[in-house]
């Protein structure tokens, strides 16, 4: 039997204290390169955001939602939140949490240890953190109003050095055909792209979980009927289905972010439902469900309080892989001109807009595409890492 011994807190090397000055430096100096570099990039993002604080009044003038400057407020709050998390992580390196042997081997701690050891998974995690951070703090980071046509001459080439040294009419990533700052457009576009990806997949995951759990739990004709419906939807290529729905409803003028989000959500839940169903089918036979039934709990309670929470692990992995897919689907739709209405833009619409000027100014097409690739790739890396860490079969193989 494992004795419950209080372990001595391990003495962290003195260099770990560097993390108090610049979070991440401590990790880097103690040999944890991936985490160190990752945290340092988050620091860089935070510094850029702090430098943007004097600009807040200008931002509040255009970035409001129903008269309330909700985005700038969120940006400032996120700035403090992320900074706090950074320093807390640096502090944990200097003073690691003391865990008993029992706690050390809990499922949660095993998972954390396994995941943090996975280099590519951590890269994905930092990619996602950076992306979400930049999205939340866009008003502080973006140098210009993304829709302001008066900031520069049109179709300027990217001039990062000239921009950083403060030369006039020089822009980090150049300007688009209306003379709008392309870097700002990219940031604001990413905000919409990511939000659509998250919310649409949130909808999809909820529907999928509910359908899968109900099908798996009730079995018999409920299962057969629901799975037939899932099979039918899966036999339609997703992009074609999306096109048909959006195309048919669009022509009459209904075109908004909400419509896109809902439609993406309604067409993306089938994969989740299959996974949840198979999980529930195997969980259903286990003793704790029998016990719950013997206690006389109702079906709703058993499904949503006992089955679903236990089936979530593979769903989380699938979600992180599928958010990328949702973003790609949105980008494809936008690329065909069926996405959100201008002047609001997403990475997909930016690629579509830039396409006409491929010859004159290639960066307009190259950068939004690269952003999509990086975003989707981060989610995929994170998902792979989560899967490896959650799969007990792979434990200890690395």
């Amino acid at each position: 039997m494992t004795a419950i011994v209080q372990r001595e807190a391990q003495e962290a090397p003195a260099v770990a204290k560097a993390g108090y000055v610049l979070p991440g430096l401590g990790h880097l100096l103690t040999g944890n390169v991936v985490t160190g570099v990752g945290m340092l990039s988050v620091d860089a993002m935070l510094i850029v955001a702090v430098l943007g604080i004097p600009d807040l009044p200008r931002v509040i003038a255009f970035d409001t939602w129903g008269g309330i400057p909700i985005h700038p407020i969120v940006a400032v709050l996120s700035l403090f939140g992320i900074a706090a998390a950074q320093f807390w992580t640096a502090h944990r390196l200097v003073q690691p949490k003391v865990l008993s042997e029992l706690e050390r081997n809990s499922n949660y701690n095993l998972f954390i240890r396994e995941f943090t050891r996975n280099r590519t998974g951590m890269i994905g995690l930092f990619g996602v953190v950076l992306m979400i951070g930049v999205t939340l703090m866009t008003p502080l980071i973006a140098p210009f109003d993304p829709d302001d046509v008066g900031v520069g001459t049109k179709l300027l080439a990217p001039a990062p050095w000239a921009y950083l040294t403060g030369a006039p009419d020089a822009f980090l990533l150049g300007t688009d055909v209306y003379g709008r700052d392309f870097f700002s457009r990219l940031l604001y576009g990413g905000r919409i792209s990511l939000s659509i990806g998250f919310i649409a997949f949130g909808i999809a995951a909820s529907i999928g979980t509910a359908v899968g759990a109900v099908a798996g739990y009730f079995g018999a004709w409920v299962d057969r009927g629901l799975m037939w419906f899932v099979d039918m939807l899966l036999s339609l290529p997703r992009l074609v289905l999306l096109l048909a729905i959006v195309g048919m409803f669009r022509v009459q003028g209904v075109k908004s972010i909400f419509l896109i989000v809902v439609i993406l959500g309604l067409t993306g839940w089938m994969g989740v439902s299959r996974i949840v169903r198979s999980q529930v089918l195997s969980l259903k036979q286990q003793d704790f469900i029998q016990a719950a039934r013997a206690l006389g709990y109702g079906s709703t309670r058993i499904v949503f309080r006992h089955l679903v929470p236990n089936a979530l692990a593979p769903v989380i992995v699938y979600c992180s892989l599928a958010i990328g897919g949702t973003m790609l689907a949105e980008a494809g739709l936008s690329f065909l001109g069926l996405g959100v209405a201008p002047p609001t833009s997403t990475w997909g619409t930016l690629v579509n807009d830039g396409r006409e000027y491929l010859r004159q100014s290639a960066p307009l097409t190259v950068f939004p595409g690269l952003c999509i690739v990086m975003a989707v790739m981060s989610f995929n890396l994170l998902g792979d890492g989560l899967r490896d860490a959650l799969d007990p079969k792979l434990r200890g193989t690395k």
Partner: protein
Amino acid sequence: MLKYLLRKLVLVLPLLIGVITLIFILIELSPGDVADKFFTPETTPEVREKIVAKYGLDKPAWFRYLLLLKNLAVLDFGTSIAHGEAVTTLIGEALPNTLILSVVTLLIIYPVGVALGTIQGVKHGTVVDSGASIVSLFFYSMPSFWLALMLQLYFTLKWELLPTSGMHDPVMYEFMSTPEKIQDSLLHIILPGVAMGVASAAGAARYMRSSVLEVIRQDFVRTARAKGLPERQVVSKHVIRNAMLPIVTLLGLSLPFLFSGSVLIETIFAWPGMGRLIVSAIFSQDTPVVIGCFFVFTLVVVTGNLLADIAYALVDPRIKYD
């Protein structure tokens, strides 16, 4: 086996009816008058009358639904509103083009992915493996339409090596000799083929890698090594053959995936296939063509699934369907 296939075939019918019902409901729900969806302002009164009779536009929804099913049952897809041609003719022209693109993509791009995955699996844990993993994940995460634009940017606009779009040279093709025609067609298929295939090749590489990793740990591989076979033979005769099995299924399943990708790729490369047909039909609200295309897309998916099943049984004698 035969019995299994027959049972699968019987299940295709409700699937098709389901898809048609779904599309019908979509068309019904979409805003605007039903009749408007079947006419353009230029439609002449005579044609108008014919269409009204054909689709029962003056009848209630349930009647139109049954009429649609009846027409489809005898493979009568009706006439395109935008082109005035029979839908079957339009699809008949477009389908082979998409099939050519898909098959060429599958045959050329796919083996590259499988080979890459095999190397990764065999060299598991080395720099080769992690490097290739990152590269294949990079391409796997890439929107195909963006890759298509990048290919156009470099290979046609900058380096002027390959033609931008179309299936063959618009002017010169007629006057070419047969070998020149073949060469011209091949040059035209390279870019769309690559743009369409890279993502699924990267997917295949990822899949093959994990498949190889699973096989290489098994006992019969250890036996093969123990009896003194050179590593080369262990890999080619024992590992690859067994690891290929799930890939065969993937091959059949990626046909619908490619068809879905064709929507974007064909639009960019002006490839006159199914993807372009359905996009233009949706944009011009050409309802009969939309329905016809969905019918064909569903059939392709179902065929892909069936092919996957058959191929799986053919390559793996252990599989017995009943």
